[in-house]
């Protein structure tokens, strides 16, 4: 069988919930994929090997384990992308679970389209607007984002000055500036618990504000991003559907 397309899934972890991670890897193993697609998964541990014993128990034949210091979300994914070959890179959050048809739906939608593609968050969708016909949206969330090799080569992945948060908004704006589009794929579902579980709000809020300040500094007075870098919609960076 001739493998025509390699999809590399990158999951970067930092003391992540092991139960959810196990389910995530289980569902990735159950993906319904076309015959010509090869799926490889890289589990990148940001604890510098401290969680190796736990995480390596989850490994299956197509999953590799790498580790580094806690370098941040975007930088970790950049490292995985730089160290591996792929046609499509699927950036996944460690606190989510892919529907068994998610990758197939993303690939199917991405055919003959240029840009980046996000899965729809489940069960509570992100409120930002996307066109119901074309799927075009202002930016793609990094929690389940499909990046074609060509885009990666051209843009060089995430801007690793963002430790966590806003790196997805940043890459989306750069994608649009380069003449491509951001898409939401409504048939691709990714379970993501954004609203239900209690979190360390203070720590998250601090990181969020820090990244927001960096985003503003980078784009606020950059005229070449006029009509792309939109700060008028608050932290949503897009108009909402409801």
């Amino acid at each position, binding site marked *: 069988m001739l493998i025509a397309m390699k999809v590399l899934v990158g999951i970067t972890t930092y003391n992540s919930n092991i*139960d959810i991670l196990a*389910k995530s890897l*289980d569902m990735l193993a*159950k993906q319904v994929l076309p015959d010509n697609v090869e799926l490889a998964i890289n589990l990148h541990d940001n604890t510098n090997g401290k969680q190796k014993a736990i995480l390596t128990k989850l490994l299956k034949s197509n999953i590799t384990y790498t580790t580094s210091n806690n370098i941040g979300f975007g930088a970790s994914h950049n490292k995985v992308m730089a160290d591996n070959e792929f046609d499509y890179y699927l950036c996944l959050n460690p606190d989510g*679970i892919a*529907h*068994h048809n998610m990758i197939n739906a993303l690939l199917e939608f991405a055919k003959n389209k240029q840009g980046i593609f996000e899965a729809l968050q*489940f*069960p*509570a*969708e992100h*409120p930002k607007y996307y066109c*119901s016909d074309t799927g075009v949206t202002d930016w793609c969330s990094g929690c389940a984002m499909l990046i074609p090799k060509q885009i990666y080569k051209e843009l060089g992945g995430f801007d690793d000055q963002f430790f966590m948060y806003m790196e997805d908004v940043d890459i989306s704006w750069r994608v649009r500036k380069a003449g491509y589009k951001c898409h939401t794929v*409504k*048939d691709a*579902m990714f*379970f993501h*618990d954004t*609203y*239900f*579980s209690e979190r360390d709000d203070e720590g998250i809020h601090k990181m969020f504000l820090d990244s927001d300040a960096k985003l503003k500094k980078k784009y606020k007075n950059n005229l070449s991003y006029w009509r792309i870098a939109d700060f008028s919609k608050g932290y949503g960076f897009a108009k909402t*559907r*409801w």
Partner: protein
Amino acid sequence: MPKLAGKNMIDNNKISVIIRTMGNRNDMLGRALFSLYCNYYPDKEVVIVYQGGDTKTLEQIKSWQNIYDGMEYKFIQNTPPANEPDKDLRSDNINKGITAATGRYICFLDDDDTLAPTHFNGLIQAIDDNNTAWACGNVMMDIELDNYIYKKSTHFSYNKFSYVQLLIENFITIHSYVIDRNRINKDFELKFNTELELYEDYEFALRLAYNHTPYHLDKVVAFYKVRTDNTNSFEFDKAGDTAKNTKRDRAGQKLEQLKQQLFDGNILTKEMRQIITKKEVREVLNTKKLFRFKTRVGSKRRFKIELYKLLKPKKQVI
């Protein structure tokens, strides 16, 4: 979580989720099961009651257990009688599921709805902490067309449980609560009314709340899909499907009769006064909802008179 034990107690902490489904809804069922698979509660049993005679569809339904594993599955086929092949067995489907369920906790889920990942943990914790027979939470209404959600509504969200409010409108959806079978009174019939083809969930909620006051968890626990292609059962058919509208009218009339029976012919009996506080009545009367929604208990005027009477008990004779 504390485990209750004793005679006739169910000695486990399993939750049984009873899902009723029909043919041609397998994709919807898959979404519902995906939400269960992602749910954080560890001990889950899924009881799927399939209404139909098609064995191929049943096999498709059964195949979900290979994808969403880690949960116990039970499959029940409920075929309508030959002389009434289109009969809606919705209440009977639930009842068969309840009979087959082995969990101490019970939850219902229609095949087109989904649950939040914290649904079971949150509501079971609320039951244990407050020693109630059941607990309910808020539901987010997703209004969609062709799987595109264009509006959300908090129609099924509320600050606290109110029986008066429940009499006015059905705000407790079938998948918004968990029942602890060990805490249900022995004389309460944990069954849906098979005479109803619609509103069976409303009648059950009224009966259940009449006998056991729930604890209300002020958090979103589930999502309710409103499909604007006219395929939801609760809506009048705007396209003029008279059969569907007649079915709704018939079910509505039947519900009125059952409510009257439940309240012994008098809307506010002594027993009801015990569960309805004056403060609650005052709060409900002050809301616009009373005037916005048509009450289903007798006439709206009579219902309002009864509520006002409750506020002035000296003049009231029951």
